[in-house]
């Protein structure tokens, strides 16, 4: 069982959350020429890192907020959690 610290509600069990995938994926800017390759990268291509992975989760059975979680995909260690709109310094 993962335990995820929701930035709004505190530490909760994994069962309250729903997964939302890779949080590092950025939608190409609107009103800009977008190449097929850029669009392909946004919609389909993923790094799927082994190790530190920044991902989206939604606290579905809680405050319903989307959050970002930095988790190790091999050990499941959770390093940090952030609000969805929080800037993350790498």
């Amino acid at each position, binding site marked *: 069982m993962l335990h995820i610290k929701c930035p709004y509600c505190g530490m909760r069990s994994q069962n309250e959350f729903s997964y939302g995938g890779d949080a590092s994926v950025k939608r190409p800017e609107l009103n800009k020429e977008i190449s097929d390759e850029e669009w392909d990268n946004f919609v389909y291509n993923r790094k799927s890192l082994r190790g530190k992975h920044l*991902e989206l989760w939604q606290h579905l059975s809680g405050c319903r907020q989307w959050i970002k979680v930095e988790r190790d995909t091999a050990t499941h260690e959770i390093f940090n959690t952030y609000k969805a709109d929080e800037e993350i310094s790498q």
Partner: protein
Amino acid sequence: MQKYSIFNLVKNAFSNHENWDLAWKDPTPKEEYDVVIIGGGGHGLATAYYLAKEHNITKVAIIEKGWIGGGNVGRNTTIIRSNYMHDENALFSEFGMDLWRKMSQDLNYNVMFSPRGIINLAHSDAQMNAYARRGNSMRLNGIDAVLLNREQVKEIIPMADFSENVRFPIFGGLMQPSAGTARHDAVAWGYARQADSMGVDIIQNCEVTGFDVTAGKINGIRTSRGNIKTKKVGLCVAGSTNILAEKLNMTLPIETHLLQACVSEPVKPILDRVVTFGAGHFYISQSDKGEMVMGGDLDGYNSYAQRGNLPTLQHVLTEGIAMMPFLSKLKMLRTWGGIMDMSMDGSPIIDKTHIDGLYLNCGWCYGGFKATPASGWTFAHTIAQDRVHELNAGFSLNRFSTGYLIDEKGLGTKTWIS
């Protein structure tokens, strides 16, 4: 190579079975090969076997980080089927069914192929309609499909829950009678033994650390046991695809996720089919040892852990008990996990790449085991001829950017819910 036969079995009985040849050798890597296959799982071993058998290319090495058959080919629920709706998946899998039927004779190794039939249960009128459509599509492609009503299903699997007030009543099901199971380890060992006898080097405990690519061409690979020169490299590493792709500066439409399976304590024969629950994601069969072999959903978030988390297992087994209540009385014997190369449309990729001499075989999601012979056969063709076969032409890497997706379930790009 020593042939496995009743005659040899009797002969070796006189020497207490101590004089059998080793099934495959343990060679040190040579300096150069015609083809290097990375990944000694079912698909890699089958690819090497068909390269030697169908294309006469025997200067081949299989490079495996762990030991052969230690990954997903030893971690699946052994189900073999071709009950697909889309032409690409259906024709490819049905070609594979034919290879499965001949496999034990072909490999001189008993893979215990048991065409016991698979039943996908339906729990609503809408689902019956969808199954009728899928069954008709299968029959148009020459695959056997039978639509069963509630009474017919009850006759075949009376132990399922047919009581009145259940949350997901059984309306009927779609059966593919020719589907079944096989002994998964035997598939890996059978391919390994034959490939080895034709000159393929199976190199275990050897990790690929890098690639030698110059001017868009592959020239060799770097491994923990030295550099190997080669003009052709086939990548068949399932859940580790992205790790190797990163070394090639490639980003692929693949995510790695964890799938669990489990077996119960062995019981007397009760279930002689493969059955899937239609209101969730749960599949079950009974092994020859009597264990109930079960599996279901992914753990639901990117994972390379190769071992699972309990909430998913509890969820999956709850579905199992809803379908077959007697399962609640069984003790669990073992659970395990494997890492799946989940593609963005749920269908595989067997293709050339933008790097000359680099071939890609990945995206099997949880359908990898049944595809073993067809995947090896078509991948060997793609590598040997440097062009795709018509059976895997649809499994192209560029289908995502061009829009020719093969989305069997219509789930889109959320790999963790498929």
